[in-house]
């Protein structure tokens, strides 16, 4: 056995008044914290809600009524709006009830804050975009000299500058709506068939941490924590969606009836048979 003598051992320091940091206490506290954090991290690393694997019921009449009322109100404004169909996983650009363009949603998630907070269920089916959209970078159009090159060449240069600025549009962004709802758009490829490992989930933990702190902030100032929808689109589609957004654009949560419900006859079979 070897004894160790340290000639210049630093003095023990105390963190809190009256508290002495002994080696044993440091170990116990460190171990407890590490175990606690590891347990919380493991909670996030395991797959989320097992109920999501179950087949989802098609929207009921009350849900369809809410969605139709919201879409009618949006169409009445004769402005372009977004319609999100959570059941079908589609995000549509619409106007006057007509489909203009469909954005393919690779994967969608719905997040509600832990510990309730009233943000779990959407209160209405129609929202208004309140995120201030940044002014796009506008290429400066050169002024030609009267005897200079033709209009085509300068327009082409500006067009190329525009194409470049389009390519630099964000692929990851967050849209805030009123009544409170947040949509987080993530332009990522290969998320349609998520083969997420525990390590991937741990890597994504950075988003979760930020969201958690935001939620704590909301609670501290007495605000309701809004529910959140995460839409994964391919990067080009995410950029395209960003370019399509208009200030104060409306979002409608649509609930179209299931295809089999549409195919079914409107009159029940028994009464149809009885009709003359």
């Amino acid at each position, binding site marked *: *056995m*070897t*004894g*160790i003598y*340290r000639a*210049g*051992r*630093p003095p023990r320091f105390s*963190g*809190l008044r009256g*508290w002495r940091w002994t080696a044993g206490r440091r170990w116990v506290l460190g171990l407890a914290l590490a175990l*606690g*954090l590891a347990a*919380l*991290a493991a*909670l*996030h690393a395991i797959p989320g*809600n097992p109920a999501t694997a179950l087949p*989802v019921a098609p929207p009921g*009449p*009350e849900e369809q*009524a*809410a969605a*139709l009322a919201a879409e009618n109100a949006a*169409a009445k404004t004769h402005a*372009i709006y977004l319609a999100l169909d*959570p059941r079908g996983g589609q995000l549509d650009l619409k*106007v*006057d*009830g007509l489909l203009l*363009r469909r954005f393919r949603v690779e*994967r*969608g*998630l*719905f*997040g*509600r*804050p*832990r510990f309730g907070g009233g943000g779990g269920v*959407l209160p209405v*089916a129609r929202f208004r975009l309140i995120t201030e959209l940044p002014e*796009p970078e506008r290429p*400066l*159009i050169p*002024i030609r000299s*009267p005897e200079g090159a033709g*209009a*085509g060449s300068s327009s082409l240069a500006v*067009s190329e*500058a*525009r*194409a470049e600025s*389009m390519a630099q549009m964000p692929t990851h962004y967050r849209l805030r709506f009123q009544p409170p709802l947040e949509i987080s758009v993530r332009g990522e490829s290969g998320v349609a068939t998520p083969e997420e490992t525990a390590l991937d989930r741990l890597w994504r933990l950075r988003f979760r941490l*930020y*969201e*958690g702190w935001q939620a704590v902030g909301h*609670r501290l100032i007495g605000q309701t924590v809004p529910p959140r929808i995460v839409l994964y689109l391919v990067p080009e589609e995410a950029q395209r969606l960003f370019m*399509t957004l*208009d200030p104060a654009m409306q979002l409608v*949560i649509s609930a179209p009836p299931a295809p089999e419900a549409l195919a079914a006859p409107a009159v029940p079979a028994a009464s149809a048979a009885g009709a003359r």
Partner: protein
Amino acid sequence: MRSAPLRAFPEILEPAAGPAERPPGVLDAPELNTLLVPTLSQDQGWSAVAKRRFHLPDLRPLLGPLALAASLALALGLAFGFSYGDLAAMPLPHHETLAAASPRALAKAGRKLAAGAPRGVRIEVDTIANRLYLKQGDKILRTAVCSTGTGGLLVDPHSGRRWVFETPHGVHRVLDKKKDPIWNKPDWAFVEEGTPIPKTEAERLDPYSLGDYALYLGGGYLIHGTLYQRLLGRSVTHGCIRLGDEDLAAIFKATPVGARVYIY
């Protein structure tokens, strides 16, 4: 086992007169410093040196509370975060009144939505893909390659006036149609060309640039032809929608005045 080396310490610290005989297995300080761990004295550590040189306060007492605060922040962030599930399982908003959810009410609401859509032909312009669609109902009657606004900014160096050449998103209508249109050139056209703005109206008229036909959308925006056919499919215009000759003729004939034009 622990008591034997402890008993040896006083002998090392305060050696008796003459070389003391060390118990086996006990090292003295110099040997330890050179062979095992480079132990520094209290005033030789980096923090002590930094403290002396830069007059820094001793931060070591803060390490514990800081570690606690960081751990607490992590735990709060994790605990108050969101729990996520599949979007398809999202609870949908309900209508408050049951009467609105009756089959008759649903059918009526559906009819009302469909009634808002135009019955005749309509034009849809995708400004990012630079495509124009002539549609009726669910049918696409014609797809044309077009050119839309650059989104660029023109600044008059003399007056400081600014123009943004963007094709405006939203719902428009065909307000007027003209064959062999004459362009009444606005000020920006002269500013861009670097020529003085004319004083008379006659000097502004250009019978060639708009092509054979023009559909007026209001606000100075038109669907018209172009001299620069090779630039179709690119965002090169001042906000108007340019088409090739053949497509322009077909769309001019098929679209009545009052038809809706959706630009997105």
